[in-house]
């Protein structure tokens, strides 16, 4: 695929000069064209009657990846996962696992195991029986099953609970049993459908790191479906942002955050300020954006193919805006405004600043000095500034 073709596809994050390294730097099999993907969705379409749940999705997921399908409810992410598990059949298109077409295989013949949102533990079986269920179906000898179950329980710190029934466990323990059951058969791919949705926030954060640890130790490909953007950012090597059955962007968490390809992604992942405007001039790799009569033009790095008179949106992350009481002397972009709201969160403060044209801008400031009196408060006249490299120019 050529560079030009890439930039028009959802994977086209490479156009940005602000490339950031993935957390597992060095691990990027998706950049290696010689690799066979572990999972390939090929022009997969799924219709339920008149409703199109998944629109012509093509996606490669590689071995050892922790891949996240992220989107609001009803965006088709769960349908995609269920098609991979075999519970739904694509209306058209193919699904391949390690090069082999599995589109027609029954769920019990596929090398994938799933962890369900509701955990779907067998209520009439003990924890041991739950974890050993899949091994028993494969006809594994009893002593080997016992050994594997023990190993798996040890890995997830469940050894104490082997003889208990699911209803005698806490939610966090049930979640671990569900995960143990999904990895006990050592499948090539583990599917996780909103695996931590039922846990409270603190437990969820612990469980996220536990998931990552298990994934690294077993070396299995994990595919997680979630609507929680923080969860996707934390655990995954790559994220596919979905909307209305389509991929909006497929990239590493860093790229998704720092180089979103659309307003949708920018809004969905993290907080963002958006300014609508028109490109009036492109020179030396920078674009000048006119965003209203009588307002200072923005200066930002011009994306590839950016031309004059094009309608664009400038996306600006709140933490990248510097807020100050004095007018900056040498900033590429500076805006005057008035503080209308301050949210003090301890480590950081949120500022809502109203500009001359009435638009409100969110800015963050780290409370690095230990004072209770903060220098900027309600009704203060402030200046917002940011370098030209910080703003992201979005065409859609």
């Amino acid at each position, binding site marked *: 695929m050529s560079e030009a073709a890439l930039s028009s596809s959802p994977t086209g994050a490479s156009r940005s000069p602000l490339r950031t390294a993935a957390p597992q730097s060095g691990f990027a099999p998706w950049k290696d064209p010689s690799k066979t993907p572990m999972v390939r969705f090929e022009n997969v379409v799924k219709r339920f009657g008149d409703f199109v749940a998944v629109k012509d999705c093509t996606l490669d997921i590689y071995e050892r990846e922790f891949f996240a399908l992220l989107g609001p409810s009803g965006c088709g992410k769960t349908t995609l996962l269920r098609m991979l598990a075999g519970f739904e059949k694509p209306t058209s298109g193919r699904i391949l696992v390690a090069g082999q077409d599995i589109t027609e295989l029954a*769920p019990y013949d596929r090398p994938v195991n799933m962890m369900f*949102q509701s955990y779907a533990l067998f209520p009439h079986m003990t924890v041991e029986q739950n974890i050993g269920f899949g091994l028993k179906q494969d006809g594994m000898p009893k002593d080997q099953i016992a050994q594997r179950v023990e190993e798996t329980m040890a890995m997830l710190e469940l050894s104490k609970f082997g003889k208990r029934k699911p209803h005698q466990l806490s939610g966090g323990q049930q979640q671990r049993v569900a995960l143990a059951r999904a990895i006990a058969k050592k499948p090539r791919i583990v599917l996780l459908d909103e695996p931590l949705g039922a846990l409270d926030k603190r437990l969820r954060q612990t469980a996220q790191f536990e998931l990552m640890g298990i994934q690294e130790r077993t070396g299995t490909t994990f595919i997680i479906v979630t609507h929680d953007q923080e969860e996707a950012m934390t655990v995954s090597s790559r994220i596919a942002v979905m909307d209305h059955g389509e991929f909006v962007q497929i990239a590493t968490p860093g790229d998704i955050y720092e180089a979103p390809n659309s307003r949708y992604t920018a809004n969905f992942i993290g907080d963002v300020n958006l300014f609508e405007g028109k490109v009036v001039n492109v020179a030396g790799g920078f674009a000048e954006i006119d965003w209203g009569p009588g307002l200072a033009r923005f200066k930002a790095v011009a994306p590839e193919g950016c031309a004059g008179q094009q309608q664009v949106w400038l996306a600006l992350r709140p933490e990248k805006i510097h807020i100050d009481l004095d007018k900056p002397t040498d900033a590429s972009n500076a805006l005057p405004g008035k503080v209308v709201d301050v949210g003090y969160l301890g480590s950081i403060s949120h500022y809502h600043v109203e500009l001359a044209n009435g638009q409100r801008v969110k800015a963050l400031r780290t409370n690095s000095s230990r004072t209770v009196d903060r220098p900027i408060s309600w009704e203060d006249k402030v200046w917002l500034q940011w370098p030209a490299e910080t703003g992201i120019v979005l065409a859609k």
Partner: protein
Amino acid sequence: MRRFSWFNATSIALGFAFLYIPILLLVIYSFNESKLVTVWGGWSTKWYASLLQNEGLLNAAWVTLRVAILSSTLATILGTLAAIVLVRAGRFPGRTLFSGLIFAPLVMPEVITGLSMLLLFVALNMDRGFWTVVIAHATFSMCFAAVVVQARLYDFDKSVEEAAMDLGATQIQTFLQVTLPIIAPSVISAWLLSFTLSLDDLVIASFATGPGATTLPMKIYSQVRLGVTPEINAISTIMIGLVTIGVLVASYSTKRASQQQERELKAVDAGAK
């Protein structure tokens, strides 16, 4: 809770009296010494003893028991399958009609069910007797079994079955290892309910039966026409006992199943907090 006022207490007493005084009288008179049913002659269990000598009644009881066991087993199997289709198969053409057809016998007058069974057996040229009664009973109690099992299946998490298939169990293995054990309490209640229904049916059995297959309700009914003997009271008391036990066990197992389910749900909720 509010305490009973005298008005509440009286209405409850009247209601229960209305329902149970006839049955209580029957039970008491089964222990009557006198041969005359309406004259009290002191306590005795002699009619229970003479019952054991009455071959006609005992035969009828044995027939009834066998019919009840066979027909309730058949009804439970068919009813469970019907319930699974109705709950699991989703929308298929004719689903509403199918469910309507399954539940119609619940409200169908027994005389009509019995008569139509009789017409069917005659048309098929089947010899009426033991097996026709079994089939007729299975037919009308199947819909009760289906209702009981269906109720349980509706609040059954389908992903549990998907999980079993995902882990390598085929559809039949999934049904036998996962679905059936989970719905077992409701299947048992369905069986007990069908058993009880078959045990005390008179109308449908009279239509479907033939020579040599007289059930106990039929025997009692025909004897009563000649005059009530205390033996009838005795065997009726035994039947009341059996039915009561059946109903109690059925309702207890249903209640326990729903309590267990509630506990499971609570455990999940508690875990989520």
